């Protein structure tokens, strides 16, 4: 799914200043894009505009060259899945099975097909053993995995992770990050992950850094994550390893280049 922002301006009703003005970018079909920014940078607003929960004050949003409007939104939204921040606010079923079924029922998928879809995607997110469990028996990471299964079952072309790990413990965060990586490797989907964690941007094809409503960095993780000063000025914190790399840059010692190369490699594999 190709997403295009053309000169988009958006302002919340209650705020004095727009979140962004004349924001333009294109996300190509089938790519994984990380949108990074500190809390309040406007990154989540982008997600809400893409899925049509918010409407721009000016400018256009095009999805596969079709403009997002009141007339087109219903059809387009069926092709998108979004995983929100709070695992408790998006669990609608009484059991894991019901929760994954929710979206399918809304789309009137026949029962037989539905049963198969649920099994298939629960297996994929490693929650098959929990199908009859209720949400209070699940950890935050498991709930988010169920949300992912629900989105996958809809077989949408685009999945957006809107700060999906920010309320999870490190173990849950790791689970969801691994899930994102495997989605990227095994499906032909477009993925957008919106986050303030640099760790979650490492595996993306492209990283966009947002600050004060402007795109201040845009490129591959290898390029973007080296921009220490801009990242910090954008309210982001360097991963410990990146910080060490930056300090080593100025030093001179034995095996410097091989150590730095190895560190990069380790960071990208984390």
């Amino acid at each position: 799914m190709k997403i295009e922002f053309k000169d988009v301006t958006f302002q919340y009703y209650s705020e004095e200043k727009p979140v962004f003005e004349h924001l333009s970018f294109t996300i190509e079909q089938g790519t994984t894009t990380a949108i990074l920014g500190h809390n309040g940078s406007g990154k989540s607003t982008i997600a809400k505009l893409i899925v049509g929960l918010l409407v721009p004050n000016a400018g256009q949003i095009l999805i596969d060259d079709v403009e997002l409007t009141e007339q087109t939104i219903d059809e387009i939204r069926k092709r998108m899945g979004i995983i929100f921040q709070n695992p408790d606010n998006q669990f609608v079923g009484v059991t894991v099975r019901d929760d994954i079924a929710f979206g399918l029922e809304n789309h009137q998928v026949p029962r037989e097909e539905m049963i198969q879809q649920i099994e298939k995607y629960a297996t994929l997110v490693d929650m098959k053993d929990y199908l009859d469990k209720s949400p209070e028996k699940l950890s935050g990471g498991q709930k988010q995995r169920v949300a992912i299964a629900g989105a996958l079952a809809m077989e949408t072309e685009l999945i957006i992770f809107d700060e999906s790990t920010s309320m999870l413990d490190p173990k849950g965060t790791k689970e969801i990050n691994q899930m994102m990586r495997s989605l990227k490797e095994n499906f032909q989907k477009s993925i957008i992950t919106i986050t303030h964690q640099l760790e979650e941007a490492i595996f993306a094809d492209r990283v966009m850094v947002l600050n004060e409503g402007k795109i201040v960095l845009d490129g591959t993780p290898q390029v973007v994550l080296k921009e220490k000063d801009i990242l910090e000025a954008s309210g982001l914190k360097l991963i410990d390893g990146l910080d060490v790399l930056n300090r080593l840059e100025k030093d001179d010692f034995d095996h410097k280049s091989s150590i730095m190369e190895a560190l990069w490699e380790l960071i990208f594999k984390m």
Partner: protein
Amino acid sequence: MGIDFQNVDFKYAKKATTKQLDQVSFSIQEKDEFVMILGQTGSGKSTMVQHMNGLLLASGGQVRIFDQNIIRSKKLKLKPIRRHVGLVFQFPEYQIFESTVLKDVMFGPKNFGKTKEEAEQLAKDACQLIGIPSDLLERSPFNLSGGQMRRVAIAGSLAIDPDILILDEPTVGLDPKGKDELMDLLVDIQQKTHKTIIMITHDMDIVANYAKRVLVMNHGKLVYDGTVQELFENESHLKQYNLDLPTSALLAKGLKEKGLLDYQRLPLTKSQLYTAIVRGGEDNE
């Protein structure tokens, strides 16, 4: 002694077969300690801290808080205990309800019988300690950023002026800068006021950077009570307790496996990793 547990057991029901706490013994001083409690979800961390201010009562063994026995009894008065030991829950900002920041922070001390004037002074002091600028005091707490709301909620507990402050995962959900800021503030408060601070965390980078003493819970048992360095050096224990290494330690190990780095002590923080690399094979004490 501030907090003293001797062979404490806890079960949710008398007939339950699993114990949430199983023969837990330790003690924590009433001042000048900074203790982090680790363990995977369900290991008994939250159950344990809820025993520290009388929210839960032990099924067996003995809990003493500021030399008072905490046992099921009509005579047990919990208010004085909660004056000594303040507990800040996870996502405490969900419990904010007053119309201004100052009023919300004043709620605790007023509840403990302080006059309006006294409560206001305590609230202002608490806000200053936790870095809430005075121009926010008359604002609605609901228009603040997530990090600021978290601080307001913590200020509410600080305003009671407890000797021991317990926080259940205070940094969860904050962005990385917000996490660092809050941790720096807690360290600062601890040093200024000499209060004992106890916190639950899952974040090993925070443990590596800030913990002095670490308690590890596993299946209801207290399995480790000691220093950070010793904890992370012992890999078989880490695996057994399902704990990860801090980022810098993982990188250091990776470099060592490639034969690019050697060290006597496993580097745990970024500055220790940096020093180990620059000094090469030299001792990085």
